[in-house]
């Protein structure tokens, strides 16, 4: 930490002193570089952090610059009024372009945003108000308390201030609640929604932020160059920006900045060989993608992991999984008359296939309720309906007597339903601690108004979350792995992390999808102990499991599904004796082979 502060301080001193050491041309190039750095930070936030392929960043940039130009030269607004409006317009444009992200992702989103960027380019090249292909010149020098901003040296300080604030805000977002949710969404949108992240709003937020940063960059560009023309906002520059972000490292804002300033300087050095410069950055992008997908920013971490591996071989011990600390038992009597979970005639059809066919069941509050059945009998589909991933084709789900209605996964999570997944869905680029923090965070997404308006409360909430995360990690014996990435840990440990993550939301109803799959005997026994303790703390547990020994010893009641319908329901002993169950299970081996897709 002290090293970091020292590095930061010396960097700040260097940045402030820099204009004294360079010529007028270099300072101009640096000014342009800072504009690109702002753009790259916005793009990094949307693409690297939130995983939204946004190829319209250059259009948001253009909107900022053009609105400033039009309002100052044609409508007679002052520079800063025009600038404020321009940033707002860019932000709104970001939201509009982001709307398709609600319906599609990945390459679809890439092509739609690229298409919209072309549409914008088409508009500015043709619209009379935008000056057509000639663009708009004679944008006034921005006034600033008598400081002459027509000097590139003084303008540098203005940009530096804006850039420092924007970067600090970006880093603040990335490392706190909102950024964690965005990163969780990038890694696994489904799992993120299951722990309470409102995916649609988060995607829009990503585009809003990208648009705002680009807007600020656009205003600064207009004030710096005082001339705007369509070629600045062409696809070639979009791809240049993309190269900056990829080469620097899209998941690290500092990496994006390094990429942006570095590439701007190199491009200026090679201005006489522009085509060769283009050729070489194209080649570098390809090489980066194949050999260093995390960009320059990822290089230190990769080196560290190589060094660590060497050292590990030298005998340093890996941290061990500590024992689970039983939770405090609940003292509140649970309402015996109202089931914690009830399904009434739930059906789910996928085109022709009927995955669930009129399933009715009731889970008593405070029970451990098992759901068993052959592969393909609809167990996971039932979980998906209960946790809000699927809407039932017919029937209703009631949670604590309340109809769940059309509430989505994040709403159900916030109202006290937590789940784990059959094939582990941990956020793979978040540390174990961050995985827990995402789920601990119970705030609604609209809470993010605090980021621009009252950041102090974010810091306070963050401290509180951190304390609770430490407690939870201790409870589940995971404290030794807090800083590790889940993918580097043994399978059994990952299962426990997922359980801890599900419990972080303080649920009333916990759905476990094959929690013992892949665990050895000892781990399964530990699991049983944890599940009992969780139940005793007042949480109703529903679990899907194939390990019949575990089901028989652990569950209070068991429901058996076959081909999407309930064939038995009762205590483990009753169910084990039911003829329909015996039939289904004796045929299981053959059945599952035949039914395998």
């Amino acid at each position, binding site marked *: 930490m002290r090293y970091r502060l020292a590095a930061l301080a010396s960097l700040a001193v260097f940045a402030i002193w820099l204009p004294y050491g360079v010529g007028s041309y270099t300072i101009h190039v640096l000014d342009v570089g800072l504009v690109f750095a702002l753009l790259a930070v916005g793009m990094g936030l949307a693409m690297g952090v939130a*995983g939204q*392929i946004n190829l319209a960043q250059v259009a948001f940039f253009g909107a900022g610059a053009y609105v400033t130009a039009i309002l100052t030269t044609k409508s007679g607004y002052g520079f800063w009024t025009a600038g404020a409006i321009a940033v707002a317009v860019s932000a709104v444009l970001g939201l509009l372009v982001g*709307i*398709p992200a609600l*319906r*599609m992702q*990945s*390459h*679809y989103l*890439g*092509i*739609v945003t*690229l*298409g*919209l960027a*072309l*549409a*914008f380019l*088409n*508009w500015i*090249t*043709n619209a009379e108000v935008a000056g057509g292909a000639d663009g708009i010149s004679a944008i006034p020098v921005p006034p600033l308390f008598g400081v002459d901003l027509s000097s590139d040296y003084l303008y540098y300080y203005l940009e530096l201030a804006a850039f420092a604030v924007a970067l600090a805000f970006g880093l603040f977002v990335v490392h706190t609640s909102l950024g964690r949710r965005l990163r969780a969404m990038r890694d696994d949108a489904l799992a993120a929604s299951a722990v309470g992240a409102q995916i649609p709003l988060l995607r829009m937020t990503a585009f809003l932020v990208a648009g705002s940063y680009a807007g600020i960059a656009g205003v600064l560009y207009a004030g710096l160059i005082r001339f705007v023309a369509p070629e600045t906002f062409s*696809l*070639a520059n979009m*791809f240049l920006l*993309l*190269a900056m972000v*990829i080469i620097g490292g899209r998941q690290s804002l500092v990496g994006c900045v390094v990429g942006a300033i570095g590439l701007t300087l190199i491009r200026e050095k090679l201005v006489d060989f522009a*085509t*060769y410069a*283009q*050729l070489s*950055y*194209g*080649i*570098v*992008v*390809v090489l*980066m*993608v*194949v050999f260093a*997908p995390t960009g320059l920013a990822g290089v230190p971490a990769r080196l560290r992991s190589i060094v660590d591996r060497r050292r590990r071989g030298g005998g340093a011990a890996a941290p061990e999984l500590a024992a689970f600390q039983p939770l405090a038992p609940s003292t509140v009597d649970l309402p015996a008359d109202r089931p914690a979970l009830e399904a009434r005639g739930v059906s789910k059809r996928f085109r022709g296939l009927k995955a669930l066919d009129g399933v009715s069941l009731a889970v008593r509050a405070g029970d451990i309720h098992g759901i068993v059945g052959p592969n393909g009998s609809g167990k996971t589909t039932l979980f998906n309906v209960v946790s809000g991933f699927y809407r039932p084709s017919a029937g209703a789900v009631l949670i604590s007597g309340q109809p769940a209605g059309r509430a989505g996964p994040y709403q159900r999570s916030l109202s006290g339903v937590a789940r784990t997944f059959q094939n582990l869905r941990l956020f793979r680029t978040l540390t174990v601690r961050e995985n827990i923090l995402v789920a601990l965070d119970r705030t609604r997404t609209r809470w993010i108004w605090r980021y621009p308006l009252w950041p102090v409360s974010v810091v306070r909430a963050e401290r509180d979350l951190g304390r609770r995360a430490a407690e939870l990690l201790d409870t589940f014996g995971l404290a030794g792995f807090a800083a590790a990435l889940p993918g580097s840990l043994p399978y059994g440990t990952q299962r426990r992390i997922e359980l801890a993550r599900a419990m972080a939301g303080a649920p009333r109803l916990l759905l476990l999808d094959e929690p013992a799959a892949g665990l050895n005997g000892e781990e399964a026994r530990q699991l049983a102990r944890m599940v009992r303790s969780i139940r005793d703390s007042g949480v109703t547990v529903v679990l899907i499991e194939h390990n019949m020994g575990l089901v028989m010893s652990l569950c209070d009641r068991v429901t058996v599904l076959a081909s999407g319908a309930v064939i038995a329901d009762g205590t483990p002993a009753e169910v084990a004796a039911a003829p329909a169950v015996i039939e289904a299970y004796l045929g299981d081996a053959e059945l599952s082979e035949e039914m395998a897709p």
Partner: protein
Amino acid sequence: MQVTLQTLVGGLSLGAIYALVALGFSLVYRTMGLVNFAHADVVMTGAYVASTFSLTARLPFALATAVAIAVTGLIGLVIERVLRPLENKDFDLMLIGTIGFGIVLQSVAILIWGTTGRAVPSPVQTAPLSVGGIRIRTYDLVVMAVAAVAVVLLMLFLQRTKRGTAMQAVAMDHEAATAVGIHVGRSNAAAFAIGAGLAALAGALVGPLLFVSPTMGGSLGIKGFAAAILGGFGSIPGAIVGGLAIGVLDSFAAGHFQGYSEMVVFLVFTAIIMVRPTGIFGERTVSRA
């Protein structure tokens, strides 16, 4: 009515080109799950190679096109080989990698042919036909015929030959295909080469219709990509229908909105794709959830 039909005919000829571009996209996407953003620049390279061989080397147009197809096929093989480690893994990285290749192809084109671009004369010099008052350029008919032949040949290849069937198998499940002894790498390389060849064909054909320049790939490629999405990504009939639809939309937008046609095309495309993200025929690939 007259005007509408005239616009329609113009749109169909450009649409046939978009369909060829979309076919290349779709073929590569369905076999290896790779979204090739460099495809647009492969089209551009094809256009340049074909025009160079027909203008400078004075080869017949058909022969020049064949050379272009061979050259871009090779480029396709190179791209596939370099990006092979990412296949079926990281979607977004592959996408960015192909954008990188696009940048490379564009700068190589500038190094060889300069930035100015060139107009390519139509290889068919006969007067336009007049059918029921509508004037049809003979070259438009040539474009449509060639595109149709290419589509038929591609379908025959995919359905009737062993290699084509193997490619279909890889598209459905690359692991199962490996298990039954199909060399997935070789099959992917072939798909990529064919995709690039289709791009070159599109480029050669579009040369006389548009102006050939290093940046021509931009809007042409994105429209071809849009066509593939509109039809249903990975679907062969979808690519054809989507291509023709974008061509007609383009032509009507040009008629009604002049300079703003491109903006209108992309806004309409975005609106359609918002309503139906899987396109007309639905995405036809292995589920990659």
